[in-house]
């Protein structure tokens, strides 16, 4: 049984102009100790998917449907109190911008202690010691001193380490990381990615990594799900997908990335056009208007089908 099993997740919003469907039937699973990356461009629905797993979509006009099984239990059906125990406990999340996720008025040590005490019945002194240990384990120099600091006194990289320390404070089985390195410089990003890999090795945590950066995916993910306009276009083992992408969108995306090595191209093979706005999504394949392999069948929506160890949602998978 996978640790996390998301089945046919649909997220839509009631608006003045009718219902807008953002995520349309997304299914994926994260195994124990696995790093699964959901990659997609802005508006693809990747972050909403992550928020749905945490049940953090609180907009009263949001509709979240489908099933999300965590350790076999459907968390969409859990009462709020049980969800609160799970959130920050067995499932923890880190966000893109640690400055807005941390409160500015408490020291970072106090914030970690608060989370530990919310989930575990241990003496406060023990929680403090654990907070300092965690900060040290995240590679923060002089952790005792850092614990007494306020978020604004720390650099972006240090704040992200604090966030990760806090997320790991209750030994979560699943860590959800939403663009954890996007706001960081490349040398600091490399440090945080190394840290994520080390965590998996040391604690056996599963990670659901949300990112837009194919470079980050290639460096850390075991498996990857490529999202486009609210659906999964393609999913499979990372090495496999990078070596032989089968969905035209994945192919286009990988071609459009400028490379640091290898032959330099005269022009980048860009994907023409832009992703559709959620209310203007075509009824058929959402990528069809930008796709060079489009055929008449693309007027209908392709299902995500299993083909040779890979899932692809394309009528022409294998032919392109």
């Amino acid at each position: 049984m996978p640790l996390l099993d998301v089945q046919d997740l649909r997220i839509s919003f009631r608006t003045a102009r009718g219902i807008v469907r953002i995520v349309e039937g997304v299914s994926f699973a994260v195994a124990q100790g696995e790093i699964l990356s959901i990659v997609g461009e802005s508006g693809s629905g990747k972050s909403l998917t992550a928020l749905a797993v945490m049940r953090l979509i609180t907009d009263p006009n949001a509709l979240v449907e489908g099933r999300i099984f965590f350790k076999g239990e459907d968390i969409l059906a859990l009462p709020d109190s049980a969800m609160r125990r799970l959130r920050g406990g067995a499932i923890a999340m880190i966000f893109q911008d640690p400055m807005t996720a941390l409160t500015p008025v408490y020291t970072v040590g106090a914030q970690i202690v608060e989370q530990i005490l919310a989930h575990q019945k241990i003496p406060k002194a023990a929680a403090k010691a654990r907070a300092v240990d965690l900060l040290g384990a995240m590679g923060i120099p002089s952790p005792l001193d850092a614990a007494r600091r306020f978020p604004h006194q720390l650099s972006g990289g240090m704040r992200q380490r604090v966030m990760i320390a806090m997320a790991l404070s209750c030994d979560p089985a699943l860590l959800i990381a939403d663009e954890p390195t996007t706001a960081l410089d490349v040398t600091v990003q490399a440090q945080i990615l190394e840290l994520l890999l080390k965590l998996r090795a040391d604690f056996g945590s599963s990670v659901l990594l949300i990112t837009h950066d194919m470079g980050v995916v290639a460096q850390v993910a075991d498996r990857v799900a490529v999202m486009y306009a609210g659906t999964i276009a393609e999913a499979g083992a990372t090495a496999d997908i990078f070596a032989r992408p089968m969905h035209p969108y994945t192919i286009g995306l990988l071609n459009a990335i400028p490379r640091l090595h290898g032959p330099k191209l005269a022009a980048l093979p860009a994907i023409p056009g832009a992703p559709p706005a959620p209310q203007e999504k075509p009824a058929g394949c959402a990528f069809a208007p930008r796709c060079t392999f489009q055929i008449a069948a693309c007027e209908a929506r392709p299902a995500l089908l299993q083909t040779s160890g890979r899932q692809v949602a394309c009528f022409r998978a294998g032919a392109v």
Partner: protein
Amino acid sequence: MNATTILEVQGLTKNFRVGSRFQPGGRQVVQALSKVSFHVFAGETLGLVGESGCGKSTLGRCLLRLYEPDAGSILFKGHDLTRMSEKALRPLRADMQMVFQDPSASLNPRRRVGDLIAEPLRVHGFGDRQKIAARLEELMGLVGLAPEFLTRFPHEFSGGQRQRIGIARAIALSPSLIIADEPVSALDVSIQAQIVNLLADLQKRLDLTYVFIAHDLSVIRQIADRVAVMYLGTMVEIGETETVLHRPAHPYTAALISAVPEPDPGTRRGRTVLQGEPPSPARPPSGCRFHTRCPAAQPICAAERPVLRQFAGAREVACHFPIE
């Protein structure tokens, strides 16, 4: 390539005063640029890279005198911009334009696209209404937008289209130099490629010179002929893009390159992850500013600041012990 120098920067220094004496830490002087010197050839693209806080954006703004430099000179086509009065500078401004990172922040949301693009034309007395209208159509064609869009508002466009509008504004007065400050950083990959291609195409057609500021080395490699690497307000290495990116001589350049996550799972490796983070520019280290994080630092690096000097081929490096 035409080897005339269009821009020559000598010893450029810019300090910012931050904080106040009532704040903890008191008043501080941040040296955002410290004696930066380089030149740009006509018709080339010079890439300017570095991490946040290295001074690359400050440098871009100083070049257009959007910030007043504290010391040094900027020779643009032979005129020293740092010594000119605002009034004398004005006609030259038409010849140097800027493209910004966030097109939604740099376009006034209450004005129509046609108005926004026509503004520089009106300010610099381009001509009467017919002449401006004809120029607007031509510009929309150049940046790949339909002329019908001229009557729309910025919010009706996607990020990539808005950046095309920003570019149309910048090229409206046929400048020879464009400073592009992270023009594709806010865009998704598939759109980013379109804008990079557009900029390269416009350069050929309009004979433009670019100073292209970016933090993404792969984008720089795609567009830049030469690249300048900055660290904490200093220039550490400058030279031909392929030379600098594939045979870096400065340890910082090497570390920066090895930290880039390659979109290729085959390249996973124990990379030389640079420890720590850049020090505060308010208290830069003595000597070589990189010595506190440098894997190859020696005692001399803390004592003496290395100067940019010619090294192994078409590049200059500021390091006491450059990588052979």
